[in-house]
């Protein structure tokens, strides 16, 4: 009995150590104010005066930083722009990832492990290097432009690098495996005899896909979409390397607060609100998963 209770608690312990505890620290930081010191803020809710001190501290807590970021349009514009970029990237990833996963799931059984391996293979190289490689591909005198010029499709090199298009390409490329893997896991489990039954009853393959395969694949689609969407909203590296100076994303805004303004409290506030924005889709996802598990 004891072991099983432990296994139940293990995920919660994990959540406590790697999510709740750091989040509590960030939340605490977001309520403090900056200072020129090591560390660069005046801590609130310290242990020095015990529990009684906490009560006094609690009453003194200031939500000044939260008020501050509602005052400047920069912050909500950054959130909005990040959510937009993440949404577009997620849909593009789905559009490319679904046929890929479908093809893999329908491939001869013996080939599937090889195909799966090929999807995972890019992870063996550093993420940073792979994003860097895109600079060489997308720049004006890069491989893509050279190829298009050679093929006679364009006569002037395209400006792709340092634009939002490059950011989309970078995100779709980097997160594609996160879309393909849950989709593949779902599609591979689907019972092929259902499609045969549909065909026997006079269903066209196209209609069979939309009435049988797609609804059954929805949990995989949602899992893939969340796995792409959530990290893409907070993405910093890809827009920093491939995006232009005018690409507005919350990761950059957070970086500026932390490193340029040295305002750890405000940057923590930005992070807490980002988490609040992301929690909504995560909760929906959880609900859907529970429903699936219950069904």
């Amino acid at each position, binding site marked *: 009995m004891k072991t099983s209770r432990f296994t139940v608690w293990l995920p919660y312990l994990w959540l406590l150590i790697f999510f709740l505890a*750091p989040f509590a620290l960030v939340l605490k930081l977001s309520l403090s104010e900056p200072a020129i010191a090591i*560390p*660069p803020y005046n801590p609130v809710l310290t242990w020095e005066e015990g529990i009684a001190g906490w009560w006094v501290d609690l009453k003194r807590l200031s939500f000044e930083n939260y008020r501050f970021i509602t005052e400047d349009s920069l912050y909500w514009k950054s959130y909005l722009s990040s959510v937009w970029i993440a949404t577009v990237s997620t849909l593009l990833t789905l559009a490319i990832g679904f046929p890929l996963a479908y093809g893999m799931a329908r491939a001869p059984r013996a080939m599937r492990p090889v195909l799966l391996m090929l999807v995972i293979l890019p992870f063996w190289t550093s993420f940073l290097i792979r994003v860097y490689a895109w600079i060489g591909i997308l720049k004006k005198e890069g491989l893509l432009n050279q190829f298009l010029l050679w093929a006679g499709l364009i006569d002037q090199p395209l400006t792709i690098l340092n634009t939002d298009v490059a950011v989309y390409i970078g995100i779709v490329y980097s997160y594609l495996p996160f879309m393909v893997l849950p989709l593949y896991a779902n599609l591979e489990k689907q019972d092929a005899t259902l499609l045969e039954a549909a065909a026997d009853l006079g269903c066209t393959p196209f209609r069979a896909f939309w009435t049988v395969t797609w609804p059954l694949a929805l949990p995989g689609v949602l899992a893939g979409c969340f796995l792409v969407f959530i990290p893409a909203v907070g993405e910093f590296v890809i827009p920093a390397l491939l995006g232009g100076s005018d690409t507005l994303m919350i990761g950059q805004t957070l970086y500026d607060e932390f490193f340029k303004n040295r305002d750890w409290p405000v940057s923590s506030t930005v992070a807490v609100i980002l988490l609040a924005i992301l929690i909504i889709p995560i909760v929906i996802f959880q609900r859907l998963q529970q429903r699936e598990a219950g069904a």
Partner: protein
Amino acid sequence: MKTLLIALATSIFVFPALAQERVVNVYNWSDYIDEDIISDFEEETGIKVRYDVFDSNEILETKLLAGGSGYDVVVPSASFLERQITAGVFQELDQSKLSNSANLWDEVSNRTEVYDPGQKYSINYMWGTTGIGYNVGAAEERGVAVDSWDVIFDPDKISKFADCGIHLLDAPTEVIPAALNYLGKDPDSRDKAELEEAAALVEQVRPHIQKFNSSEYINALANGDICLAVGWSGDVFQARDRAAEADAGVEVGYSIPEQGALMWFDQMAVPADAGNVEEAHEFLNYMMRPDVMAKASNYVYYANGNKASQELLEEDVINDPAIYPPAAVLEKLYTIRAYDPRTQRTVTRAWTKVKTGS
């Protein structure tokens, strides 16, 4: 988070010292030293140097403010150093161990005095200017002399270069003072209205600027991909040398505009929590030897704050007016102090508006 950062920093940078092995952990800007200097120092003193690099003052500052960085010698720019001294990041240097400090150049130390009065906490490593790097051929073709900030801030002039690419440093503390100076204001102004006016000036020429960056412009200038860049002197010289080596018809020039330019200083200092204070002082003292500093400047093409090293400098360094400007030009160079948090926020915000339009 603090403890996490410390744990991370120490696990990466502080290895358990082997018995009796003397070490010094140095954290300097990237591409900023002749590596022979490090091996010479190790050979002469038997102290092992663990050399690590950064590429922005912000990264260095964040590590120092988080505490427990594990470094013994760090090299912030003077305006950052000033604030870090206030925060209690550094320890006072033991002057009795710095016998070579007599070699320092008063022209430089007098100017760094405002950041670190009495040079209690730091010594100068290199200094330079923030000016305009340009493609000589392209400027001649357009009949525009690159000798004034007009080339950047006058829409009529900058637009002539727009077709061949213009980069600006992605550092408001470098560009905003230049804009203030151009407008005839104090380059070190803290006045919100003036700072916003300066940002508006940059915003006006924003459509002509291809990219804001602080390192990419070196190669872009050298390859002839761009023809104008507001950048750091030594970086532009690197671009000049790379262009000359490539011999592909690109000639890069550097101009300290007639209205003057920002003069900056990179200072060597010892963090308060340094573990190898003795070795750090030996390193600093070594770096103040005339032959060592001459070697350093001959390699990186930046001027140094060491008077005695000047006669050992190569001709193309000491006689280059862009590296060692003549007295008349030196007089026009201006310096800026550390921004207080409120001003810093105004400047960062205005800069984001310049870059993203929102």
